[in-house]
């Protein structure tokens, strides 16, 4: 620009006329944008930093909000089965019921068979004996306090109360069912505080060899939302028409209750945090733009139209918003993953679906904070600004 003074007047007039007719040179526009960033890098960096941090906080919050449901649902599955399948009077459940249940498409699930019989001890007392798949039961009922899981044949898991009644000094004992006797070693003690404490658990195949009783109950833990669970229940009804399929209301209602409250709290918190972050960007950027009122005045004094000046500042803000959103998103995802590791001991999956929102929000806030001060400045004469008043 400083060569303008040495040019012949006609040429300058020509240029001005051309500039008025056609759009201003694109390369000039970019150069101004770039120079603005390079020359005032400290303030530009401060504005960018605010933008990045705000975008990062917003990303982390949104990521957590989207992901926390899934995370908490996994925690809730530690409460055990949420669907129980019971054979109605009459035909027992088919042998391949477990395989059929677990192969239903959709939600992830874990099914554990249980079969029950009332056996007699040597002194004639009744005790409930249950057969199950220990590997699965262990996965499903994580709250079971078990001193040792049986592995060998003829080893039994014995409930605390059953133990004190059947074999107080943990000696091998004998049980009879319909005249057939079985000799068992109590290898592990089971403590749950509920009905399981009064039972003796055997491996399913061993139990069936002894009693000929097939599994009558299948406990299923279906992961997913209430809708997923209901869909699975309908699927089970088609696979096992002869069975009675019930959701465990105690588990499902409480889970929904706690989950909704947590989500609502997180939603409120995330909104507050994101608003605060936006406020921070607004304050920084407005200050930045306000500070450059001289640039604004010079541009206008040199004949730039209001539209061009608006466009220039808007483009600058948008660029800042985009760059801030990209870096902020990366940092935010990192923070969310860290929180997932620290708090849930499981990684939070980066949700790229959040990015458009962060981007739109960043650019939007940046544009607002650029346009607002411009609106105030346009009422002033460039001369007044340049005089420093």
């Amino acid at each position: 620009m400083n060569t303008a003074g040495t040019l012949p007047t006609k040429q300058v007039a020509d240029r001005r006329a051309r500039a008025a007719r056609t759009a201003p040179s694109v390369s000039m526009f970019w150069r101004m944008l770039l120079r603005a960033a390079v020359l005032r890098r400290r303030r530009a960096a401060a504005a960018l930093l605010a933008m990045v941090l705000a975008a990062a906080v917003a990303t982390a919050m949104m990521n957590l909000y989207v992901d926390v449901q899934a995370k908490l649902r996994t925690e809730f599955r530690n409460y055990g089965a949420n669907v129980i399948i019971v054979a109605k009077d009459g035909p027992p459940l088919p042998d391949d019921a477990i395989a059929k249940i677990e192969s239903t498409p959709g939600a992830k699930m874990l099914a554990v068979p249980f079969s029950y019989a009332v056996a007699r001890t040597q002194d004639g007392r009744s005790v409930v004996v249950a057969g199950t798949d220990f590997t699965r039961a262990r996965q499903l009922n994580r709250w079971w306090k078990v001193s040792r899981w049986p592995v060998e044949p003829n080893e039994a898991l014995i409930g605390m109360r059953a133990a004190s009644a059947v074999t107080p000094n943990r000696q091998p004992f004998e049980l009879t069912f319909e005249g057939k006797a079985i000799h068992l070693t109590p290898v592990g003690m089971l403590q749950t505080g509920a009905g399981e404490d009064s039972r003796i658990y055997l491996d399913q195949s061993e139990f069936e060899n002894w009693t000929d009783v097939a599994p009558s109950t299948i406990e299923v833990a279906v992961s997913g939302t209430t809708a997923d669970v209901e869909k699975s229940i309908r699927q089970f009804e088609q696979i096992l028409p002869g069975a009675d399929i019930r959701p465990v209301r105690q588990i499902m209602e409480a889970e929904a209750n706690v989950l909704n409250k947590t989500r609502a709290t997180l939603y409120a918190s995330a909104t507050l945090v994101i608003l605060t972050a936006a406020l921070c960007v607004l304050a920084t950027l407005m200050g930045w733009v306000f500070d450059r009122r001289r640039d604004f005045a010079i541009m206008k004094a040199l004949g730039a139209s209001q539209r061009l000046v608006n466009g220039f500042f808007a483009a600058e803000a948008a660029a800042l918003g985009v760059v801030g959103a990209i870096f902020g998103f990366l940092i935010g995802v990192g923070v969310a993953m860290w929180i997932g590791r620290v708090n849930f001991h499981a990684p939070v999956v980066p949700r790229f679906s959040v990015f458009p929102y962060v981007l739109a929000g960043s650019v939007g806030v940046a544009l607002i904070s650029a346009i607002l001060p411009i609106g105030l400045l346009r009422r002033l004469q460039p001369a007044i600004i340049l005089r420093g008043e």
Partner: protein
Amino acid sequence: MFPRIVYESFRHQSRRKLLAGIAITLGVAVATAMIAVATDIGDKINRELRSYGANLVVTPQEDTLDVEVGGVNLKPPSDGTFLNEADLPKIHGTFWHNNIVGFSPTLPVTVKVGTSNNSEDVTLLGTYFNKTLHFGKDDFRTGVKITHPWWSVTGSCGDGRPARPGQVRAGQDESRQSCGWPNDDSQEILVGQRLAANLNKHPGDRLEIAGQEVTISGILSTGGAEDDQIVAPLALAQQIIGRPGAVSRVYVSALTKPPDALATRDPKTMTPEVYERWYCSPYVESIAYQLQEVIPHSHAEQIRQVAQNEGTVLSRIKGLMFLVTFGALFASALAVAAAMATSIFERRVEVGLMKALGAGNFAVSAIFFAEALLLAMIGGLAGFTVGALLAHQIGRSIFNSQISIQPVLFPIILAIAVLLTFAGSAAAIRRAVKFDPVFALRGEGQG
């Protein structure tokens, strides 16, 4: 002179000060609300977790084995030992009685229902529905309505009150809770929904149990074994087996603290100090121990499915809120810093003038810090008020209960506000002070 400069600065730049003040107020408000919510969330979620039902069960010490498959009790009814119903109100006298949300005794008995030639053995569960008990001068209510919140009853409103769904508050289904539930002192019963379908009975029908005529006040749906059972007032069950005052189980729902290393230690091996700390912490183990103390010949045990898992869920949610609060504090700090930096940067000319008139670096920064302190105090006070209201609103709309703001939070919030404002201003003040007065007065040298 010093107070006058500060005063005049506030008077003449009221708009700019207002903007900075608003930023501080909003930042502090968000911080206050988040801290209040985060400190209280444990208690709130703990209460929500009580919807999983009882986490403790009290049984007679010399209890016989349960012989029960799929909710059908195969044990002879008079078999076994019992707890005494008269001991139950003492639960309200334990050290942690404020943490005990409710309890319900149960007494299962086997009865025959149906016509004389086609009768069926059914378990009748005697319990409290919503009974008023007295302990000392206190009256309190307890029963399955509190301990088993997932039980739902459909029935007619016996006393002619229609269900008024329009007046039901969100989350608190009052009409469902009051209609169809039997009175604890009546001969009314609930019938499980599958049993009711089998017997073809409806609310209001009469039923003969063990030679007595009773009224079905509602149909019970639980999704558990009770769907095949009859649930009746405790007194009725005691009458049927001819043992007044007998109770075979007491389910207790208590607010507990997540277990840690101390919780699982055996109280017998503790030193007196450790024992006292253990006894005075609401661990599920110590509450069980205290229940055993007040109810003679009893054994209290945690229901591990409920008790063990709630600790994990609780600590996850608390941890999450803690981290989110951290995020909120960070964002507030940024907002306050940004506002302060902007407001100071714009006053370079003033700095130049002060320095040209002979003010030292110290005097200039003292003025700025004094202004920041004043702003922080005003903003902190306003922010605390707004934040308290915000927390109150969050508590009301989400948890249907108050979020209590500890008074001790106020000085902490004020300190945080001052700290945030100072930290936010420090960099800007340093740069303003370093400024060469000549350039500043000429209006140059930005950036």
